[in-house]
């Protein structure tokens, strides 16, 4: 007879912390993307991430979690009513994974697991925005985010992790989101970028990052948060969580070296943007593999992913699509590398769940033959086609209805002002001491607050102001 349901302190704390870490990744991404962007569009770029946190969190709570993790209906989605937002789940027994035989499941409250998965949905949507900088109407972006999350992310999460076709039927491996998050977001980025077209002047004009320390900061926060993303995905505190954590650090470190090496050889100089990009490429590539391979294979994966992505980002110039901040070159390519890597180096010897839970087989170099490599490829292919296809259709529909792209003039003058009536910087020390410097950096002149019904300015100036007048 099974003991009463009990919460596991260690597992629950780890998931609470991991959730906070993954939440931080989206502001981190906003800074990373924002810094890579031109100054006149940094706010719009960041707004796409921040609005995704707002919108997707609520959708996830309302029905997304049910679609992804509700009882499997047909291999394609979970029962949408399973955990509908209007219901409450706070009973003793509402522990994730609880069953008759194992009433405690993983010993983690359902709401903690829901929150953990919520922040994955948020950042996956936000990742896409890097492909459409400086030219997308904000309203269009919100519509796109809503549609893509509903038609693509929620179901795909079900396919991969919720008992759907990819995980349960195809037995493809994805520890923390190589297929569900990175290939998925990367494919969508390609689809929407093709519809939106190139930025005015691209690629003739230089469009270099406006604030590289911001890029490095964003990369640092992403790296930090990614430990929750990867090691947290084990859901329990065990040696596999430790392995996932170590592999994440090793692959990312190696990817920094790999990317810098390519830059040094190819362009003559290693760059800070390159180091930051290499880190992200490594984090992306290790994501699906972190809990399924040995540390030495993680180091190798990092080197390869860093190097290959450093080369892949030039593809857009050859093919002529404006994937502005290289979502395809880093997330799509990196996700594929990491996902296929499992077909080569996955091994039960580091994580028994490979066969026991997922029913997958060892990778090629561990005597598993080509089976798993095939499964990984098929899984990636399914998600690529579905995600890119729906993204293209959504973007096309939005463009044909409300219009997805801002006017060229607005784009040239700066989308921040056009779409958000803001400009990012006003660093002049003379600012506000009159309009003196207000315009120095942000193109701002004598600024005046809109006249208010009872504008105190009409009243006689107060003593302090007089001091200046005199």
């Amino acid at each position, binding site marked *: 007879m099974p003991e009463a349901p009990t919460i596991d302190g260690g597992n629950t704390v780890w998931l609470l912390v991991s959730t906070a870490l993954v939440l931080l990744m989206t502001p981190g991404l906003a800074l990373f993307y924002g810094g890579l962007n031109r100054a006149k569009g940094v706010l719009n770029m960041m707004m796409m991430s921040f609005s995704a946190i707002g919108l997707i969190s609520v959708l996830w709570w309302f029905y997304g979690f049910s679609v992804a993790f509700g009882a499997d209906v047909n291999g394609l989605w979970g029962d949408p009513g399973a955990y509908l937002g209007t219901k409450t789940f706070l009973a003793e027994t509402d522990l994730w994974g609880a069953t008759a035989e194992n009433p405690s499941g993983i010993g983690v409250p359902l709401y903690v697991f829901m929150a953990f998965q919520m922040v994955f949905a948020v950042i996956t949507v936000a990742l896409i925005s890097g492909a459409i900088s400086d030219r997308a109407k904000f309203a269009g972006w919100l519509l796109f985010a809503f549609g893509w999350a509903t038609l693509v992310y929620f179901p795909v999460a079900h396919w991969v992790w919720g008992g759907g076709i990819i995980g349960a039927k195809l037995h493809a491996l994805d520890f923390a989101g190589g297929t569900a998050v990175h290939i998925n977001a990367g494919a969508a980025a390609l689809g929407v970028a093709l519809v939106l077209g190139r930025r005015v002047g691209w690629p003739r004009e230089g469009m270099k990052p406006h604030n590289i320390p911001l890029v490095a900061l964003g990369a640092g926060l992403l790296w930090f948060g990614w430990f929750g993303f990867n090691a947290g995905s084990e859901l329990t505190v065990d040696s596999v969580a430790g392995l996932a954590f170590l592999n994440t650090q090793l692959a990312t470190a190696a990817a920094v070296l790999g990317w810098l090496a390519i830059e040094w050889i190819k362009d003559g100089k290693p760059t800070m943007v390159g180091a930051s990009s290499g880190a992200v490429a490594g984090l992306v590539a290790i994501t699906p593999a972190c809990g399924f391979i040995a540390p030495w294979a993680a180091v190798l994966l990092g080197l390869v992913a860093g190097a290959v992505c450093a080369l892949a980002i030039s593809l857009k110039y050859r093919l002529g699509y404006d994937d502005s901040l290289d979502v395809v070159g880093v997330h799509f390519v990196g996700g594929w590398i990491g996902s296929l890597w499992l077909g080569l180096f996955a091994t039960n010897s580091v994580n028994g769940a490979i066969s026991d839970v997922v029913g997958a087989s060892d990778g090629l170099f561990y005597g598993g033959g080509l089976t798993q490599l095939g499964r990984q490829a098929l899984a990636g292919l399914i998600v690529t086609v579905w995600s890119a296809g729906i993204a293209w259709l959504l973007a096309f529909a939005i463009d044909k209805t409300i219009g997805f792209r801002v006017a060229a003039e607005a784009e040239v003058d700066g989308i921040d002002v056009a779409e958000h009536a803001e400009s990012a910087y006003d660093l*002049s020390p*003379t600012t506000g*001491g*009159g309009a*003196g*410097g207000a315009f*120095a950096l942000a193109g701002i002149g*004598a600024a005046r607050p809109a006249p208010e019904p009872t504008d105190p300015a009409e009243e006689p100036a107060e003593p302090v102001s007089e001091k*200046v007048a005199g």
Partner: protein
Amino acid sequence: MKLVTAVIKPYQLDAVKEALHALGVAGLTVSEVQGYGRQKGHTEVYRGAEYTVEFLPKIRVEVLTDEMDVDKIVDAIVGAARTGKIGDGKVWVTGVEEVVRVRTGERGLDAL
């Protein structure tokens, strides 16, 4: 055709703009400059080291104008920019041989 150039305290720009506007001046060009002169700078400290800041932020205002209006404009700027404290700045006048409005190609007074 003349060019009136003024170097003023940043805080006075608003007043100067209003004054010129009142005179019916249609346009002007401003830029940030740094001035060195009688006005004393300030001191900054960074980890025990003192820095004397000798250059002070100023604003340069340039107005292209008809010969006739030069004095009015100079007086308007001087009046609006004055605080009576050291560092109020300078206004000077130089000759301009030709002016063209890019948009229309108009020349001379019509360009203003």
